[in-house]
């Protein structure tokens, strides 16, 4: 058989041309690969530009090309682009092969000769491979219009509302009894200092009332089956022990409940709640939860005070966990972050020195709805501090803990400094390594703090101790630090210390990632499809990420990501159906010996065995195209579209340049 192949080498500006002699490569391909059916070889500045694409289309028409090989960037970036270009010229898109001479060559090598030779090898591999491509049609699967949003923090709330407002159904799953996330715990938000609850609660209420949102709080995702367009998600609803259809949220139950419990979640250990509780007054949904770990009834078998007093008989001590399965087309993960545990830095004394607070504790301390009604006082609950030290970068930018910058601590610490001065008039010291205020209005806020007379000491705090060396230090917390701008070690006595603990990935982020089939970075943040151009999509079709689950960020950024993810999902839903890569396995009934080896190789149970005909068959709907069965079939009866033995074996030939000479060409040209 003879084909007519066009070869196109991209300069990518100087990205490729700077290292690879593109002119030489295209000239070489034109000559040396002529006997391999290459009829035209060109190089061009930007192949992906409209002009570059037109160039290819023109050739397809005029030169009657039957195959196209583009040597440019990674297929993960522009494979679609060039396939569409071919489609535009009525050439089946799957007859186009994109080989990477940028990520795999020009960007990673320095020796021009070697890089150019490797480019030739890669091109020749592509040419050899494309010979065996076949015209394919993408598989079309309908997209279920419903969406699953995991995590009811501000990012998840935003995403859910955007989609629901657009008229599509959303299942919002939240682990805690109420949505709201960390933002609900904060007092003020920087840099504008508007009250966190005032701007958040309206959105929470909208979620609660929205006809298109099924709110599943006190629930967790257990299992995810299927793939983009058609996920089947199993969700476990933990027992609330409240009949929500009867509950009015009147609050009598938690008034009457005799059991006080320290609230380590919402109040960050600063306050108490009852055994039957709503985490905070504006909670959505308004129904309480009975905490069966601490409830006297579950411990001793008696009490039931809540049941006695409930005006609507909404208490049900016999509720059991319940599992439901929902069908969705897309999933957005917005599971947020955990606060760095300051106990891991013993020399900062948190947990040992009473008046050392974490940032979250301090948020509750400032919060008008918090344990002290918004009075900034020391642990004794009454004395206001005269001097306060605020420590930046706690657990962040430190290879001993988290190497990365937590992004919010600078602004958060500035906010704290302002609140302390505003409410107590206390002297405030901020200890920082660098002040990072790279957002709208942030630097101005820093300026404002400077004007307010907050003291800034540049230096990473070495230790915080109660050990006094001089009378002035008696009864104080002493912050020992080098003031790096004057090159002196200073010991600064204060009454109260606030540790701006950084953000880190949820402690179970790895398991959750596995559950949804996406990958984590070294720090366990979820990896986006592209760090700049595709920050809310993941490598897995149909699964998106938003907010801090992708990396530390502040509220504005989380909200934008929530909205962005929603927009991506809506786009998919509007397509009604999506086309999947037709990369699937198929079994040649004639050759199948019925040995059933492939049956067990398939993790998706996509291969079924026909007892009658004694042969196996692939269910294209279930097959994911990994190709393991193809490699495993002893009879060679299974072939994988797009990655057939012929395609790969001849690509090997090509890469070794066997297709043009009888001897393997060594690396130096």
């Amino acid at each position, binding site marked *: 058989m003879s084909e007519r192949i066009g070869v196109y080498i991209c300069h990518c500006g100087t990205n490729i041309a700077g290292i690879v002699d593109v002119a030489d490569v295209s000239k070489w391909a034109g000559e040396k690969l002529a006997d391999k059916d290459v009829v035209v070889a060109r190089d061009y500045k930007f192949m992906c530009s409209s002009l570059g694409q037109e160039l290819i289309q023109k050739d397809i028409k005029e030169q009657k090309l039957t195959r196209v090989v583009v040597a440019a960037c990674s297929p993960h970036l522009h494979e679609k682009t060039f396939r569409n270009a071919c489609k535009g010229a009525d050439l089946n898109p799957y007859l186009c092969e994109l080989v990477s001479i940028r990520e795999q060559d020009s960007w990673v090598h320095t020796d021009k000769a070697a890089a150019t030779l490797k480019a030739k090898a890669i091109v020749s591999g592509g040419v050899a491979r494309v010979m065996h491509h076949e015209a394919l049609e993408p598989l079309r699967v309908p997209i279920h219009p419903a969406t699953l949003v995991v995590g009811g923090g501000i990012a998840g709330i935003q995403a859910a509302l955007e989609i629901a407002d657009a008229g599509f159904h959303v299942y919002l799953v939240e682990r805690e009894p109420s949505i709201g996330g960390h933002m609900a715990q904060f007092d003020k938000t920087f840099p504008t200092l508007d009250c966190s609850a005032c701007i958040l609660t309206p959105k929470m209420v909208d979620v609660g009332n929205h006809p298109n949102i099924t709110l599943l709080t006190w629930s967790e995702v257990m299992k995810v089956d299927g793939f983009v367009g058609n996920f089947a998600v199993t969700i476990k609803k933990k027992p609330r022990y409240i009949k929500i259809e009867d509950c009015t949220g009147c609050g009598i139950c938690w008034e009457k409940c005799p059991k006080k419990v320290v609230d380590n979640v919402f109040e960050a250990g600063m306050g108490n709640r009852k055994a039957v509780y709503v985490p905070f007054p504006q909670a959505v949904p308004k129904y309480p939860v009975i905490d069966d770990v601490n409830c006297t009834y579950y411990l001793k078998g008696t009490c039931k005070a809540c049941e006695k007093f409930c005006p609507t008989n909404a208490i049900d001590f016999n509720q059991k966990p319940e599992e439901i399965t929902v069908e969705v087309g897309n999933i957005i993960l917005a599971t947020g972050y955990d606060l760095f545990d300051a106990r891991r830095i013993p*020399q900062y004394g948190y947990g040992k020195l009473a008046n050392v607070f974490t940032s979250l504790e301090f948020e509750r301390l400032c919060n008008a709805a918090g344990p002290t009604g918004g009075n900034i006082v020391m642990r004794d609950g009454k004395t206001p501090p005269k001097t306060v030290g605020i420590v930046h970068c706690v657990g962040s*930018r*430190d*290879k*001993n803990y988290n190497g990365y910058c937590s992004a919010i601590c600078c602004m958060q610490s500035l906010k704290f400094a302002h609140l302390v001065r505003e409410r107590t008039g206390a002297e405030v010291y901020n200890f920082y*390594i660098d002040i990072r205020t790279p957002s709208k209005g942030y630097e101005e806020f820093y300026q404002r703090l400077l004007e307010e007379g907050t003291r800034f000491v*540049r*230096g*990473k*705090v*070495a*230790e915080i101790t109660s050990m006094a060396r001089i009378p002035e230090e008696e009864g104080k917390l002493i912050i*020992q*630090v*080098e*003031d*790096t701008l004057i*090159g*002196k*070690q200073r010991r600064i006595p204060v009454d109260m210390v606030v540790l701006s603990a950084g953000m880190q990935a949820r402690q179970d982020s790895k398991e959750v990632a596995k559950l949804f089939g996406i990958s984590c970075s070294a720090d366990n943040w979820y990896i986006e499809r592209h760090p700049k151009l595709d920050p809310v999509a993941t490598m897995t079709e149909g699964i998106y990420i938003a907010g801090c689950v992708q990396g530390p960020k502040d509220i504005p950024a989380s909200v934008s990501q929530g909205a962005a993810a929603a927009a991506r999902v809506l786009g998919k839903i509007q397509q009604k159906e999506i086309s999947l890569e037709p990369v699937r396995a198929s079994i040649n009934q004639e050759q199948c010996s019925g040995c059933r080896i492939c049956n067990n190789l398939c993790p998706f149970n996509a291969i079924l065995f026909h007892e009658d005909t004694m042969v196996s068959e692939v269910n294209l709907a279930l097959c994911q195209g990994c190709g393991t069965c193809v490699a495993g079939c002893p009879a060679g009866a299974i072939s994988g579209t797009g990655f057939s033995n012929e395609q790969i074996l001849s690509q090997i030939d090509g890469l070794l340049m066997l297709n043009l000479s009888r001897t393997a060409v060594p690396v130096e040209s």
Partner: protein
Amino acid sequence: MVDELSFSNEIANHMYASHGEPITNCLQCGMCSGTCPAVEFMDHTPRQIIGMIRADLKEEVLASNTYWTCASCFHCTVRCPAEIDIADMMYALKRYSMWKGQFKDGLIGPDFSEAFVKMIVNSGRSFEPLLAATYLPKFSARDIIQEGLMATGLVLSGKMPLLPKKIKGLKKFQQMVRRIIPIGDPS
């Protein structure tokens, strides 16, 4: 013509065996200097020394007493957020300055270390009274009296032996040492 190795590179070479990160990674956060228990007695804080090395301020660094004031307590090393072995860097500077024979006047450290090693090479064990000879000359009269008082106290309390010990396999021991540093025949 060979071009001179910069001071910062020389120090980097002296830290070749260091088990920490290179000092180019320093954030200048001051954790080391904030931690250091001897910092008040240093001409420059450890952080400043790192900055000065990176700026190739060779003379200023060698003229500083900082690295001879390091007590080798390794507190900076374990706390450094850039995982630089700062205490080891101080050793590197000591080695460098002894190699160049260039250090601040009036320091006892260099003589002491040298004497200490000489003593070990000669006997295989350390012995306080012998050492005294090497550093007392540099002490102020007042210090000498104090040392004297203390020493007598020690001897009386039976803590300070009056005769030096030697190890048995001294010959072989010295051959071993010779394979590392050039030493003349033991006196």
